[in-house]
């Protein structure tokens, strides 16, 4: 995945909170960027322009939804998007840190992540596959997320890292 595409995907994903929707919106954004490339003024910041396009596509996607996971609007949403853009710029570092942090997990935790994030199963399905309760799956997912999050942020804050 090209670096700028990776960042845009992270940005979009964090604002639509759904993997398939994020795919669709990213595709839409790429099409717009391509179609309107002549509007891009050379010498200006490409990435800023790309985020602007992505923001508009996210807004348009959000308008089309009957129900939103996080139903915020206006200034609040705008601030959230600003924060997301800043954070998405560091997606490459996040990915590099993740690769290291995954090695700190147990094979069981990796297996759980594969089911959830690679194969895209619901907690219900994972619970059935492993003869565990749904509650236990959510608990484990929460825990693994927290472990990774703290490992990644400590690596990203380390000035000697990367």
């Amino acid at each position, binding site marked *: 995945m090209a670096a700028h595409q990776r960042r845009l995907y992270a940005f979009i994903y964090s604002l639509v909170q759904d993997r398939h929707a994020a795919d669709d919106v990213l595709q839409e954004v790429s099409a717009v960027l391509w179609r309107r490339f002549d509007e891009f003024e050379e010498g200006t910041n490409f990435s800023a322009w790309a985020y602007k396009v992505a923001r508009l596509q996210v807004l348009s996607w959000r308008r089309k939804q009957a129900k939103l996971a996080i139903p915020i609007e206006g200034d609040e949403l705008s601030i959230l998007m600003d924060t997301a853009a800043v954070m998405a710029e560091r997606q490459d570092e*996040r990915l590099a840190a993740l690769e290291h942090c995954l090695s700190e997990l147990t094979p069981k935790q990796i297996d759980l*992540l594969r089911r959830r994030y690679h194969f895209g199963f619901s907690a219900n399905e994972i619970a059935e596959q492993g003869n565990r309760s749904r509650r236990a799956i959510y608990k484990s997912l*929460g825990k693994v997320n927290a472990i990774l999050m703290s490992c990644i942020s400590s690596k990203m804050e380390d000035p000697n890292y990367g």
Partner: protein
Amino acid sequence: MDNAEFHEWLERLNDDELSAAEREQLMSAIGSEQQKQEAFLNHYMLAAALEEQLAIDAERSPLNSRLRNWKPILPWGIAAALALFILLSQFMPDTPDSSNEKTSFLALLVNEAGAQFSDENAPDDIRFQKGNYKLKAGTIHLRFTNGADVVMKAPTAFEINDGFHMRLHHGRIWAMAPPSAQGFTVATPGVDYEDLGTEFAISVDRHTGASKLHVIDGQVDARHPDSKDLISSVTGGQSLRFANGKPEQTDTPDLKSYSTPGDIGFLRWQQNRAAFGKDDPDLIGYYPFTKSNSLLNEAANAITGNGEIHGARWVSGRWPGKQALLFDRDTDFVELDIPGKYEELSLATWVKLDRFDHSHNSIFNSNGWDAGDVHWTIHRNRSMQIGFSGAKISSSSQSLKTIPTNQWIHIASTLSLSSGKSCVYLNGELAGARQIERRSAMIRPGSGRIGNWLEGDRIDQAPMRALRGKMDELAIWKRALTEVEIKELVEAGKPSALWSIESK
């Protein structure tokens, strides 16, 4: 709400499993705290990174990295618990105090078929402690804590002294000792057989106490029980008989009279076969592959037909006494009809594949590719897929790429319109899952071929799909089996407790 809880809530939010009140609470946390807002965004950015990284990992070392983590000879099921016990035992003192006496053991029962012990001393479930045992009926496979495997069939009387010493009073045993078990000693009347990293068979005559040793591989030293003086070193292919206090040259004993780990696997399979899926109304086809002019369906609620064998020849299967069909020419196949319309379907089979000659290699392919037709294939790149015509299947998740060759493996696949998933399993492990996008279509396999494909009037880029290998059991259900159920099938049908996957 701590970090783990916060992410737990977001995971539930993603599955749409938060109540309105919880959603409200989450919203206000995100709205009021800058830190929570960042954690919220971070959750999805991590998800994006995970998707990418896990896809790279799957690509880079498909399944392999996980296989390497497996204990190579530990079976699943009951034995998953054993792995823990074995681990624990290593931390236990040699002379356990009374508090952990109950959980301590010197050997574990890893497999058995029809085993019955005499009442005076039976093992505690699967745990064997110091003491005398009499196997009255059946066959057992023991694993000592040092890793030595011992298989014996009734009638046999033996004593376990410690993790490295057992005594054979009478009967026959087959033993395999890994390097960790070097020094494993089987005592018999008048002589001790000390293993030096090897595979061997020993018998003791019930009346005379005379013993026979045959070394299959490696070296075994015969020693005097008291002085420990070396009587004879016996190496691979050699035999020794010890009677009346003296060693004698002897012919190779009849090794067929000894039970091996595989024999237990076969016995268990034979026991299970009659009851296979008997109470499962969803089992619509069960083919145990018994030699006949056609492939017979033994399911109690059979819907699928008997298979018509074309070209494929009967050969031996997972065990020497078990039959399999060999597919090794382009004209070899079994014609099979799966009539009816289904919301869900599962297929599971034991195969030993030789090689992949074509870009697609058929396990079962409906003839042609009309609406509802099912194609279960292994690609030349060793990935496995199942799909049906009319299901728009997203390929965002690639299946694993290493279906191993030259060993017996269990492969299974499921299709489910209700969950919208198509899954493939290798040896009971989920190996790939894809999304079925169009759920209005129906699964209608109809007539098809095992081990081949009839292209019909279709022009296809991969018309040749002849399989190269053996198949010795096949079952078909009209529901999607769970991973737990598939693991049970593998456990029940695995060739032996020593069977494991050697992935290349």
